[in-house]
């Protein structure tokens, strides 16, 4: 992997982490549009790669919250994660059956919603 690409991706990771630390939003909100806009990723490749990157971000953040501050309610998390996992399997399957641009359109709508919430909330 060339150095310029590594630095660019490092910037994406840093920005995703920064917004995660600032607002408690998932890094995906930042990673997906940046990969599409600046790395010519296809919509599905961007969302899949984002999910893989989020594993590391969420694990570290959850470990810090749980390990240092004891904020993680493991029992509730394990109850709720069951249906969430069923959902993500369904979501990824649905994604393969809809036009790729529909994913971008959906993401743009969610970004607009997040922007409104940030300004009004």
């Amino acid at each position, binding site marked *: 992997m060339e150095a310029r690409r590594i630095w660019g*991706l490092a910037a994406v990771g840093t920005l995703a982490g920064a917004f995660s630390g600032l607002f408690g939003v998932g890094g995906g909100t930042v990673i997906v549009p940046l990969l599409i806009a600046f790395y010519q990723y296809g919509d*599905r490749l961007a969302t899949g790669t984002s999910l893989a990157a989020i594993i590391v971000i969420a694990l570290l953040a959850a470990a810090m919250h749980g390990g240092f501050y004891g904020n993680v309610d493991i029992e509730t998390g394990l109850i709720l994660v069951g249906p*969430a996992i*069923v*959902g993500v399997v*369904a979501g990824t399957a649905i994604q393969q059956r809809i036009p790729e641009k529909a994913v971008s359109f959906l993401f743009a709508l969610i970004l607009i919603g997040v922007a409104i919430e940030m300004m009004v909330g």
Partner: protein
Amino acid sequence: MDIAIACVICLIGGVVAGLIGVGGGVVFVPAMTIFLTKGQVEAEATSLMMIALVSVVGTWRQVGYGNVNLKDAAVIGLLSPVGVLVGVVVANSVPERALRIGFAMLALYMAWRLLKRVFAKDPDDPVSPEAGPEPLADPGPPR
């Protein structure tokens, strides 16, 4: 009953996560604060644990569909802790209102870039005027 509603909302959060590649925390956190009366910090921390597990399964599915660039994901994921630290420092030194407006502007810019791409004409599309007319069949030598 409340836990059942929270489960249904988290199911929807999982679908959103799979569809658009985010962790789903935007949905998980309110499910816990509203229906299970968890505090904001506890909900966010528990949501992060859920996001990690949901992302593992989501990634496994997307690898199967051929939609993951593992090298790029590793670089982004492993360098994100630097950003988390930067974020925490910035959050403590810049007024929250300015941060929220800054993030809103970034989100709108990203939305604009995505929408521009969605509605751009595809040069490979034969219906698109940019693609030009279909080449005519060779009529053969004049008679």
